[in-house]
């Protein structure tokens, strides 16, 4: 092996999104072929407007697919997700640098 190993995940959120799909599949939330179908459709949609390079754009499609399959299967509601995202954003902006970032239990 002459090449230095590349990081498997380029960004922490790539890894977290990846793990979410794998874990949900293993918990029986959806079958992997169902996931592949939804993800394939999302990738094709994203690929209409630009050529995907397999990096950030790949995992953006992954997240779109996760949200789509979770809302379709009634595991997550779009409004609840939007609300939590806003809460997290506020929490980051209001937490002093260096402190752990938390949101209130819902």
């Amino acid at each position: 092996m002459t090449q230095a190993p590349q990081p498997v995940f380029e960004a922490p959120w790539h890894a977290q999104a990846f793990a979410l799909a794998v874990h949900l599949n293993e918990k029986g939330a959806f079958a992997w072929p169902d996931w592949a179908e939804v993800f394939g459709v999302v990738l094709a949609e994203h690929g209409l407007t630009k050529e995907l390079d397999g990096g950030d754009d790949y995992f953006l499609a992954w997240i779109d697919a996760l949200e789509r399959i979770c809302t379709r299967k009634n595991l997550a509601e779009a409004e609840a997700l939007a609300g939590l995202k806003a809460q997290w954003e506020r929490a980051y902006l209001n937490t002093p640098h260096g402190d752990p970032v938390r949101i209130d239990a819902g």
Partner: protein
Amino acid sequence: MPHDHHDHDDDHALLPPDPALRVKALETLLTRKGLIDPAALDEIIETYAHKVGPRNGAQVVAKAWSDPAFKERLLDDATSVCADLGFYGRQGEHLVAVENTAEQHNIVVCTLCSCYPWPLLGIPPGWYKSDAYRARVVREPRAVLADFGVQLPDGQAVRVWDSTAEIRYLVIPQRPEGTDGLDEAALADLVTRDSMIGCGLANTP
């Protein structure tokens, strides 16, 4: 230290990028509903970031090069043969091994998304997931191979295998010349990730 911020960016925690916040929202909601276990997520990340990778596949290939009977079994039923070696689980349920020969070179793609034999090769590299590779390798595999620096003899056919959520492929590259005396461990060092996708050849000693 240069300090030319005009707002209060330095005072609060660094705001993660938008998609990271979307993932956090999903994780929070699903955790609150009891649908996921955050510790299991960490375990999955740890596994694929550090434990599972192409060295697994390289061991299988080296064994196939060294042991003709093993290779026959591998070509016949890769799933159970790899499971016997401890390489099984997520995305490895239906493995098919395809052997490169002087007559045929094999190359693997997933045109739908990015299906890949995780237990043997880990998580696919970025280029495997790119539109450029997924679309082009089917149309012009020899040109794609040339981009990887691989020039095949004219007489060697190229077969493209399209992975699915059900079937994952492992390419057994041709054993390089000059490796007669090498043991499995030394042979495994010659087997690159790309050679097991079919976009490269095994290294020579």
